């Protein structure tokens, strides 16, 4: 029985609006992971799994909603987890280039940071006040008086001793001197000379002796000064302790539960005692800066607390999205300040990375971006492997700089990393990075499609309506929802499936909303959706139309009527952006006596891909199996895609190539009113191909432009019938009998349509009826075989 055109209902799977479920006010939750049960389970498993290495890789096409779903689940889980502790960097007073870390409960880091600033501010007031107090001055004065008195006593004692010898101690502009006296008055030189020699000698002796003592006394003065200085230092220490100790004690009591903080405060205490001079910064400065600014100035940086994470008082675990996952943005960095051409840094300039912010929670990253930044992937793996965040500069990673910088103590890491990428990337990493499987043990692969059945339609319609609501679009009429569902099936090239690409649905909804508003409607109906589909297609179809025009003008030769031996219309698909278009191509074949070789010209010139070559090689096997089981295949044949100047691949034309070749061998012409698509196996079965809708529409467009004759049509594999979701105009043309779609299961069916003749069946002797297409092929091959045998025998006789 001849193959019949497909009925209209097979060409377009309409959506029954009675299956669309309730009205908008009773819809399903908009963010439900419709059709993603497998991915959802994987995500929940990874998020709930506490062990190391159970990080998650999520894949799926763009717009499928994977990031939103993962974020939502992570955010929900985060609310059930405690907020992570604060991590703070503080100065290491013994080795300032290796800052220490403090772990504090959430919020306590910020509090400690404030407390330290307050401590410095307080001491900036209290220390100068203590040293300016009357009490301190009095004590200094007491020390001064004491030593002044000791000096005076010493000189007074010497003066009294000298007086006993009638000698007086006097001051000179530069020091002291001793002079002889008589009756309470100094002796003049004349009086001295008048004294007996013995007395003169005695006076000289006394003075010489007293001079020695005087020298010794004067030498004592610097010692007294040194001693007074030491007393003063002790006093300063005492006053400093009196001021600082209570403040530190109070802080220690406040943080008594945290030994690390107590230890830090102890080192701060020691440093403050040793550097009390710093607290006179305000009175030393000409500008007299306010205390809160002074407390934050570089002089007091060493007492500050750099809270890396936990600056906000969160109630839940963090969920961090890092849009620029560079090495430094992930691991953190040490910044520098320039001062007169010199770069300086300290622990306060350590900046947290995404890992710090996400510690104790979830970090969501784009895998492709992550891999595109130098060292970012390695840095992330190292952190996950070692379960700690160690800030190393990029310069160090490159090994090009040898200057000393900060080496902050590593921070323990407890984070669940979620990488979002595509499947290709996942399998590449799995194949080429041996660490990847151990660090990312869970894979969540988002489904692209959903079965289109009564149950899912109900939910899917709800999803469409909710997305419209979320986007603040006009409400949809049921017919509008139905048309979107139909278009969703078209997007996945399957009338029994629905697309889960929310991005596409939302785009279509927005555009339909635009057209509805343009028409002044309050609701989106099916025409608005149709207009959105057609307008989108029109906007992107310039190149496709140019190609059609070239065919119309005869620049590219495609016949749509008549019959030609060894020539047929194949169909191919090309993609421009989001849109795919089908267009016809001419295949020609030639056949002659030969040695059984089928030449694929595309392959010979290296424009044919491997799959295409495979298809052509199957043809040879089919020919031999069907027509020359008991004799050599004495054939040489050539196949070519005419006017094709680019690479060709795929086997979707292999069935038509076979038919064209058979036409060439048998001499039976092929009707050009048909275009055909489908791959073939060695048994002659027609197999499904991709892009069936676009291919049909491509040939339809050409025929429509030239004028539909009523007998034109496209032959497709029967396996592709469920995929048919053709444009409205094609369906209407078919419904009106002006165009036809045929579904075939075998080469014979396709051949009978193309040739318009009975192809014939093999009898018990493996022979086909002589007038059938197959019979003519078989007969021709037998003839060539005989000719070849004779030629071969003649050659042998000659030898």
């Amino acid at each position, binding site marked *: 029985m001849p193959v019949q055109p497909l009925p209209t209902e097979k060409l377009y799977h309409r959506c029954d609006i009675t299956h669309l479920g309730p009205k908008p006010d009773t819809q399903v939750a908009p963010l439900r992971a419709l059709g993603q049960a497998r991915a959802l389970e994987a995500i929940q498993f990874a998020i709930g799994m506490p062990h190391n290495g159970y990080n998650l890789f999520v894949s799926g096409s763009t717009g499928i909603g994977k990031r939103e779903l993962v974020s939502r689940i992570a955010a929900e889980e985060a609310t059930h987890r405690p907020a992570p502790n604060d991590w703070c960097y503080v100065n290491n007073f013994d080795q300032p280039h290796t800052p220490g870390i403090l772990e504090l409960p959430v919020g306590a880091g910020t509090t400690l940071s404030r407390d330290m600033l307050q401590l410095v501010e307080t001491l900036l007031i209290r220390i*100068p006040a203590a040293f*300016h107090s009357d009490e301190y001055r009095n004590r200094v*004065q007491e020390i001064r008086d004491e030593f002044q008195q000791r*000096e005076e006593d010493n000189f007074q004692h010497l003066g009294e001793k000298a007086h006993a010898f009638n000698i007086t101690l006097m001051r000179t502009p*530069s*020091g002291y001197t001793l*002079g002889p006296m008589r009756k309470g008055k100094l002796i003049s030189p004349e009086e001295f000379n008048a004294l007996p020699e013995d007395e003169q000698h005695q006076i000289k002796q006394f003075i010489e002796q007293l001079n020695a003592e005087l*020298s010794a006394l004067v030498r004592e003065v610097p010692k007294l000064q040194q001693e007074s200085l030491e007393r003063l230092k002790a006093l300063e220490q005492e006053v400093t302790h009196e001021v600082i100790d209570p403040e530190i004690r109070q802080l220690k009591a406040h943080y008594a539960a945290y030994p690390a903080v107590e230890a830090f405060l102890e080192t701060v205490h020691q440093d403050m005692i040793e550097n009390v001079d710093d607290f006179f910064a305000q009175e030393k400065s000409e500008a007299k800066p306010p205390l809160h600014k002074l407390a934050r100035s570089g002089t007091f940086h060493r007492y500050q607390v750099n809270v890396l994470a936990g600056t906000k008082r969160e109630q839940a675990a963090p969920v961090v999205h890092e849009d620029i996952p560079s090495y430094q943005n992930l691991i953190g960095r040490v910044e520098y300040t320039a001062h007169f051409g010199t770069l300086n840094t300290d622990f306060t300039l350590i900046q947290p990375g995404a890992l710090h912010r996400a510690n104790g929670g979830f970090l969501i990253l784009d895998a492709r971006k992550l891999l595109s930044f130098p060292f970012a992937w390695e840095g992330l793996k190292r952190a996950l492997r070692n379960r700690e965040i160690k800030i190393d500069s990029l310069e160090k990673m490159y090994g090009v700089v040898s200057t000393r910088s900060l080496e902050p103590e590593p921070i323990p890491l407890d984070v669940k990393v979620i990488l979002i990428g595509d499947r290709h990337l996942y399998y590449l990493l799995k194949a080429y990075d041996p660490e990847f499987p151990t660090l990312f043990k869970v894979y969540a692969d988002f489904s692209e499609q959903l079965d289109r059945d009564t149950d899912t339609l109900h939910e899917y319609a709800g999803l469409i309506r909710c997305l419209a609501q979320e986007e603040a679009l006009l409400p949809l009429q049921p017919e509008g929802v139905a048309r979107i569902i139909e278009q969703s099936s078209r997007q996945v090239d399957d009338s029994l499936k629905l697309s889960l690409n929310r991005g596409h649905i939302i785009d279509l909804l927005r555009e339909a909303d635009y057209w509805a508003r343009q028409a002044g409607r309050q609701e989106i109906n099916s025409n608005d959706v149709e207009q959105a589909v057609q307008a989108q297609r029109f906007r992107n179809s310039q190149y496709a139309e140019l190609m059609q025009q070239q065919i119309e003008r005869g620049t590219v030769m495609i016949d749509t009527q008549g019959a030609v031996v060894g020539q047929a219309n194949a169909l191919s698909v090309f993609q421009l952006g989001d849109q795919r278009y089908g267009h016809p191509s001419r295949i020609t074949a030639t056949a002659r006596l030969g040695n059984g070789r089928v030449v694929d010209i595309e392959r010979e010139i290296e424009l044919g891909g491997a799959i295409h070559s495979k298809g052509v090689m199957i043809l040879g096997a089919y020919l031999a199996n069907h027509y020359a089981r008991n004799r050599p295949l004495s054939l040489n044949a050539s196949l070519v895609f005419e006017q094709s100047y680019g690479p060709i691949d795929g086997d979707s034309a292999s069935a038509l190539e076979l038919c064209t070749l058979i036409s060439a061998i048998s001499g039976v012409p092929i009707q050009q009113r048909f275009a055909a698509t489908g791959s073939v196996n060695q048994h002659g079965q027609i197999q499904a191909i991709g892009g069936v809708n676009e291919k049909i529409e491509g040939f339809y467009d050409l025929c429509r432009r030239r004028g539909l004759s009523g007998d034109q049509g496209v032959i497709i594999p029967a396996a592709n019938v469920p995929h048919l979701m053709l444009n409205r105009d094609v369906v209407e043309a078919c419904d009106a009998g002006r165009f036809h779609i045929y579904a075939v299961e075998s080469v014979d069916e396709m051949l009978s349509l193309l040739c318009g003749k009975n192809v014939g069946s093999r009898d018990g002797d493996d022979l086909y009826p002589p007038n059938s297409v197959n019979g003519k092929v078989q007969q021709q091959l037998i003839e060539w075989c005989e000719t070849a045998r004779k030629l071969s025998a003649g050659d042998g006789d000659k030898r």
Partner: protein
Amino acid sequence: MSGRLIITLDPQSYDPQRLDRCARLAVALNMELCALLIEDQELLSLAALPFSREIVYHSARERDLSPLRLQKLLALLGEQVRQTLHQFEQQHPLQWTLQVDRGHRLESLLHHQSEADLLVTANQKRTEYTRPTYGNGHPPGVMLLHCGDSASETALGIATGIVIEQGGMLDIIALPGSSLHHLRNLPKDTQALPHLHLMTVPVLDIALLRRRIIRTHADLLLIPSTLIDPALPASQQPLLQMPGVQVFIVR
């Protein structure tokens, strides 16, 4: 000119800043400035002895005490003072004289007291003990001994002017006879000083006062001339012998 300000100078305690301060004060008070260089006659006589030796304070080195060097020092000081005052005169309307007096420093001071409306002593420098590392932010203060007479009132006006110009604390000790029992009794410009301290002393004990003055941060003391008894020998005038403090005797 409305009076005479005498400043005594000797090589042992010469401080150019103090001379400058006195010169400014003289200009402010429209007084004639008399710089009085006192040549210690006893020391010169002692230096003439062949065996006289001097122990240098800062090095404990022993050397000959030469009258020639003492005279050179005095001459050098005289020239220095002359130049300082000459330069000051170029910029300020100051009338000044330089006088050299031979004798004992304190005796000379007492001798000239009657000639001066304001007499400024040159007391010896103190050994610097325990200069505090911290808390030196405030400038040295001024102390006034007030006993209620007109010289005390003049001294109060001078002290207020000095503090307004140089800053620091004005410490007023109200002695018996003074009417300054409360800050409100002070003149308005004195009350307006940011750092002001008033203390009443019920009994006049000069020795106690001296100790108290030395223990303060004041490096300038104003006293009415009535507190100096010209009948007493110089050695019994404790207010004139305060190391490190410049004494202004106001008549």
